[in-house]
């Protein structure tokens, strides 16, 4: 009977245990995003301003510390808050300070409020940016420009990002999404009679570098099922994005992840809890 026992342990993301390049893997993503920010800022001045980005990072970190103490009584690991803050700092385009602060605060707070069975179901910065676009369009927009025109700089970021993501065991998600995006760009180009390169252009911009390396691969908010399921979901995000783009939604990638992410996570949570319930019964058979 032992042979009939089904293994239900979800795939554990490698970052929890592994060291990469001799560095605790939890620091890898903060380091990568910091490098992207510094290279972009020093080369082209990509940020709205240093103070605004620092505001976003500080607010995110402060909220993380306060909320962690308040809810758990523990000092949190700050990598996640740092990534959220810096993502908001880069992706937010607004002349205001309060939009950076509010977006960062919403991102971090969402992790503590919107939870299902102990898991948060939205990527925090994706959630906050999508919400800000909906509730504060008069003062808030997102990164919508190319950083400079250096193809090599872009290739370096893509290559470095891909290697790191691969070592973290998340490359299949990024790769699937990119392939699906290109495929759907072709479909959109055909349907709308628009240049294919116009449809594919967004993928060459910095917003997508952050989107594909940091948002859709976020271990905390992606399904913990098999790689195939994760790839299917990346495909579905690209599909939802295509539908939104066909209706000329300018912020399609954010809203696609905003919609698909929690739905798949909820299914994942439900599926895993169902299996977990089934496991003892199966084991006793």
């Amino acid at each position, binding site marked *: 009977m032992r042979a009939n026992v089904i293994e239900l342990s979800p795939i554990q993301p490698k970052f929890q245990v592994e060291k990469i390049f001799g560095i605790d893997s939890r620091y890898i993503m903060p380091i990568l995003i910091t490098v992207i920010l510094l290279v972009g800022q020093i080369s082209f001045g990509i940020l709205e301003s240093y103070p605004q980005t620092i505001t976003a990072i500080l607010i995110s970190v402060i909220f993380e510390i306060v*909320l962690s103490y*308040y809810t758990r009584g523990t000092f949190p690991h700050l990598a996640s808050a740092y990534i959220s803050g810096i993502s908001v700092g880069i992706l937010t385009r607004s002349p205001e300070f*309060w939009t950076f602060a509010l977006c960062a605060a919403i991102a971090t707070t969402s992790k503590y*409020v919107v939870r299902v069975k102990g898991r948060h179901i939205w990527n925090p910065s994706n959630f906050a940016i999508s919400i800000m676009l909906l509730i504060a*369009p008069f003062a808030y927009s997102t990164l919508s420009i*190319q950083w400079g025109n250096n193809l090599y700089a872009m290739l370096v970021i893509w290559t470095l990002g891909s290697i790191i993501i691969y070592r973290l065991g998340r490359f299949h998600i990024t790769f699937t999404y990119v392939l699906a995006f290109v495929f759907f760009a072709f479909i959109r180009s055909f349907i709308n009679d628009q*240049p294919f390169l116009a449809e594919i*252009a967004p993928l060459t*911009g910095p917003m997508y570098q952050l989107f594909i390396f940091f948002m859709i691969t976020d271990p905390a908010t992606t399904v913990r099922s098999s790689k195939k399921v994760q790839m299917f979901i990346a495909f579905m995000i690209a599909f939802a994005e295509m539908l939104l783009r066909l209706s000329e939604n*300018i912020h399609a990638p954010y809203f696609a992840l905003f919609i698909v992410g929690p739905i798949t996570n909820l299914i994942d949570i439900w599926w895993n809890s169902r299996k977990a319930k089934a496991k003892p019964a199966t084991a006793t058979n």
Partner: protein
Amino acid sequence: MKSFKQFTLIILFIGLLSIPFFVKKYYVTEKKISIDKESAMKRYGFYFEEVAEKSGVNFSHSAPKLDTKVENIMPIIASMGAGVAVADFDKDGWNDFYLTNSSENSFNSLYRNNQDGSFTDVAKEAGVADLNNVETGVSMGAVWGDFDNDGFEDLLVYKWGKTELFKNNSGKNFTKIENTNFPEWANINSAIWFDYDRDGLLDVVLGGYFREDLNLWNLKDSRIMPESFEYAKNGGRKYVFKNLGSGKFEEVSEKLGIKSNRWSLALGSTDLNDDGFPDLFIANDYGVSELFFNDRGTRFIDVGENSGVGFAPKSGMNASFGDVLNQGKQAIYVSNISEESVLLQGNNLWMPKPNTNGMNLKFENQANNFGVEFAGWSWGTQFGDLNNDGNLDLFVTNGYISAEKATSYWYDYSKITVGNNAIIGDAANWGKIEKKSLAGYQQKKVWLNDGAGKFNDVALSVGVSETFDGRAVAFADLWNRGVLDVIVAHQNAPVLIYKNTVSPENNWISFELEGEKSNKSAIGSSIKVFWNGQVQKQTLDGGIGFCSQNQRRLHFGLGKNAAPERVEIRWSSGKIQIIDAPAVNKVHKIKE
């Protein structure tokens, strides 16, 4: 306990989400009401009536039709013209104005002031009408300046093509000056006269938009677009032509240290750092603005980044100067693009930083604090005291392409603007615009300065309701009444003239300068008017704003029962002249 914590977290979360609903009211500055003239006069002290047609001005701008290789985005490329320049070209004491057109075989117009409230287009008989054709290019704008110091304002017409200079023959007609050394072909979108070396001869700066090797009617391929939306350096070059006298000019930009291939849409010159020499500001599309301080007429020093104005890249389409706090220092206003939730660049109001001066003068963007940040897709703007209350107000035109209503090219635009150089740089990769609008049908802004650091939009209340795609704006006292009227040129639409009626209780004073050692037009000369413990500085421009030039007369509102104690004229030659307690409510004609 756990549920209490969860409850407080939810309250916190809801509180955060509700913040925008409370903040939003501070962003709605526009009074969405049209009120009658009497109420507007009572409330704001002025009112505009649109009188173009009534005054005999039936000019309508039309766009060029360029090479079919860029047909897919023709309206985006061919939307940069519609200029207006004011001068009293016949020296009869009444302001006339010149309007540029941009379609092939269209005519420019020179409206002579009939002194009875009407204008007559005399461009054809004066010889400055027929300038737009495929062979020599089409007009983008014009600037008046007495380059030969004969006392009559000459006319420089800059084009996507061959820039042309016309000598004014005693106010009767014009003769084209040949062999000026101006480029045979360049896609010039901005030009100003200034006397950078104070030799008494007007020099000229030309700002290129598209590269000068491109003939937009005969393209080799469609790779003509910016290499980046905010970091492009593949636009047209800048030219500085030193006036050698006798209609000859020498190109000296490299010698002076002005090297730029950014996409210039507006030039402005004034003595920002108060050293007696005119500085140069360039508002660039697809990139940062540039500021050059004049090193005593020998060279220009690029201080864009150091001064603070040249760091954050935007889509500069205008540069204008205004002493908005009456402190004897001019701020720089640059218009950019603002579209809710899509692209919120915000316009810039670069205020001089306290305790900085000379070559170390720095600026900080105070557009948000002053309430002049979000206007739309902004183009020409001008500062001027519209109600004579003593504070400089701000008129801003908006709107890019008004085609079919309820359509938008914003989505297509947002796709391509993030694209890499290899994609964005080729017009063929841009989505077809067809009949779509892009930031179309936008309201103008008439921002009234309260003198305490806040501007309030009163456009609709004072009679400015038209939503054509605005480009050039020029201020002029068209009927010699001691007020500033407004001429607005529009892309693919009629020119509008807003006749201003101002409450008579406010005093004013105006000055017409005539240079002697300075250039005859006195371009670059500044006047400071001191009254009631405040001082306002204005500079006589040789072209300012997007494809615009204001009247020669410098007009100062003073407020109720107010009179200047002292007026200081700083001539462009460097000479300083003081006038004590000049009479109010009159135009003072002053010779150097």
